[in-house]
């Protein structure tokens, strides 16, 4: 069974159409990267998947259950989908530890002790154990984002959505976050919207190129970078490739 | 509806007094040479720490003991004005703090004296920035005039009381009516002030303090 199926999703903000019929699927533990010019609906697509912005038309299926069905329990569905934000959105009034554990405590109804223990594990995983007792205001951008990832991981999701996770970071902090993301490959399904071409090229199982609210082309990194079918794809990758160079991105 | 006229009169005089005094206090505190600021600080603290009612009593009942006799209206205006000045000073100080320091430096470098700089550069900006806070204070003052009733001023509230004595059954209706009058006044003033605010707005500027 396909883990994630996005079928014919349409979304407009007011009169402006953003997504004009997007469809794709994802399998368990796959890593897919969405690239494309800014403002073409990539972030909107992610928000449609976890229903932060429900689509106007179309369906989203997770593990055989339809998320977009109004009768479905969206909160239960969201436990299975993690979201990492461009602006981190850490809970400002909680320490790093509690940021990670609060989902476990309040949504999964875990005991406080157990939740904290699990949270510590996740924080270690992203390399932030010493910062457990600090508040978001005291953390650097890169640290904040890693806490954000830990927070998403703690919920044991089937899929994690990354919405331009490194766009708000200083260049030298991007590497740490990308390293964490790389370590997750193959362990959990990841759908990443990013401009980091190095990451896309070296880590993704498949790359999706979006423009104008539709998927222009999708394929393996090798196919897309060396042998893309659509001229537009070649053009975009060519330009960005020249800009970012061949290295790991960050 | 004489009471209404009195209410409006109290408000007008009170706010006028308060505004002028308030501006002086704010400017004196921010730009004055010591020890002037300290007096102003104490004034503000004291007048914002006492209930209006107590202040009115002090002025109307207390002053006669040392020979100053005020009629109810004057005592009320004095009390309202003094208090309002203290709160307004805070608003103006917030506006003053919002003005970049470069303004007064630029004024000096043009050759203006301290007084001229304040008058031509700082003051116009302060007044515009303070409009939201000031209109807030205006409506507060309007509502506070109802307290003047307690020292015998014949404004809206006291008229209401008179009617209460004459027609006890209608009492609820009467007070609701009075409430309505106040509400209409406050509402209209808010609308007018919002219009004024828009008209005199300086793009990109906002004062940082509200009461």
């Amino acid at each position, binding site marked *: 069974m396909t883990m994630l199926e996005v079928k014919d999703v349409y979304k407009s903000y007011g009169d402006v159409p953003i997504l004009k019929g997007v469809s794709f699927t994802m399998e368990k533990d796959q890593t897919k990267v969405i690239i494309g010019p800014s403002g073409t609906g990539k972030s909107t697509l992610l928000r449609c998947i976890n229903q932060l912005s429900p689509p106007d038309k179309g369906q989203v299926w997770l593990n055989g259950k339809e998320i977009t069905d109004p009768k479905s329990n969206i909160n239960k569905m969201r436990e299975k989908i*993690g979201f990492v934000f461009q602006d981190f959105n850490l809970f400002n009034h909680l320490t790093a530890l509690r940021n990670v554990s609060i989902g476990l405590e309040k949504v999964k109804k875990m005991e406080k002790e157990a939740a904290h223990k699990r949270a510590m594990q996740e924080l270690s995983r992203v390399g932030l154990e010493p910062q457990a007792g600090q508040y978001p*205001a005291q953390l650097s951008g890169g640290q904040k984002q890693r806490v954000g990832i830990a927070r998403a991981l703690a919920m044991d999701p089937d899929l994690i959505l990354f919405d331009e996770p490194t766009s708000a970071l200083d260049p030298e902090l991007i590497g740490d976050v990308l390293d964490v993301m790389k370590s997750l490959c193959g362990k959990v399904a990841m759908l990443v919207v990013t401009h980091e071409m190095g990451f896309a090229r070296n880590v993704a199982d498949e790359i999706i190129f979006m423009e104008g609210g539709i998927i222009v082309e999708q394929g393996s990194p090798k196919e897309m970078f060396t042998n893309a079918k659509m001229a537009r794809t070649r053009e975009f990758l060519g330009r960005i490739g020249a800009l970012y160079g061949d290295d790991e991105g960050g | 509806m004489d009471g209404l006229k009195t209410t409006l009169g109290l408000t007008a005089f009170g706010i006028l007094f308060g505004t002028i005094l308030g501006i002086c206090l704010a400017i004196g505190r921010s730009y004055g040479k010591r020890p002037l600021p300290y007096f102003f600080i104490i004034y503000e603290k004291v007048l914002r720490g*006492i*209930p209006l009612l107590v202040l009115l009593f002090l002025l109307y009942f207390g002053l006669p003991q040392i020979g100053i006799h005020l009629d109810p209206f004057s005592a009320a205006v004095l009390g309202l004005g003094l208090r309002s000045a203290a709160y307004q000073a805070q608003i103006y*100080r917030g506006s003053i703090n919002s003005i970049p320091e470069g303004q007064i430096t630029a004024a000096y470098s043009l050759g203006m004296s301290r007084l001229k700089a304040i008058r031509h550069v700082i003051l116009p900006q302060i007044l515009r920035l303070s409009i939201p806070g000031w209109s807030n204070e205006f409506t507060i003052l309007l509502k506070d005039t*109802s307290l003047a009733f307690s020292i015998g001023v014949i404004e809206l509230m006291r008229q209401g009381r008179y009617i209460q004595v004459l027609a006890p059954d209608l009492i609820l209706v009467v007070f*609701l009516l*009075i409430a309505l009058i106040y509400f209409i006044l*406050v509402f209209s003033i808010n609308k007018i002030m919002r219009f004024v605010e828009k008209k005199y707005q300086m793009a990109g500027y906002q004062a*940082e303090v509200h009461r």
Partner: protein
Amino acid sequence: MAVDFGQFFINSLPDLLSGLGYTLLLTFVSITAGFLLGIALALGRVYGNKIVNGFCVGYIELIRGTPLLVQLFIIYFGLPSVGINFTPIQAALLGLSINSGAYQAEYLRGSIQSVESGQMSAARSLGMNKLQSIQHVILPQALRICIPAWSNEFIYLLQYSSIAYIIQVAELTAEGKFIASQTFRYLEVFAMIAVIYLILTIVSTEIIDRVAKHFSIPGIGAAKRVSLRDI
């Protein structure tokens, strides 16, 4: 003269303390009731549907558009004509609470809205429902942000509790008037009372500041505290 005044002060003390008790009662009960009412109204304004929102706005505008005194009069003098009677203290507590609720609703709403929308998105993404998000993420931050406004409201209630005198509640100002009319020493009495209020104000501000510091979290809070101690 000073000795005479001292003696006078000591003689008046019992009455003044009794009045003070009422003043504090009025202040504390009203600020608490007003707070609960205010939160309900603020949440209704921010998260409620059109009907709830409209009702809340109507209530807030009405209360804030009319003087406290008028509201007290309506409750104490007006309602009896339709059969609802309150004792002075009940009417005062009710009136002050209703009034405070409307004002607190406004700055609570401001605080809630100043919590970035991303916080709500993050909470929902974890699977929290709306209520949980508000309870565990939005409110803890909003309540810390609004502390300066809240302490202003406390001081406000402390002072305006004196209005209860007009509907015959024996609070501090009323006691003062009583003593003064007996002894004709208006100036001294009201000066004394003024000083007491002043001390109350300063002490309260100090206590609230300390408590606020205790609960503060780096990164949350208004940038500039408008305080009576601003130098």
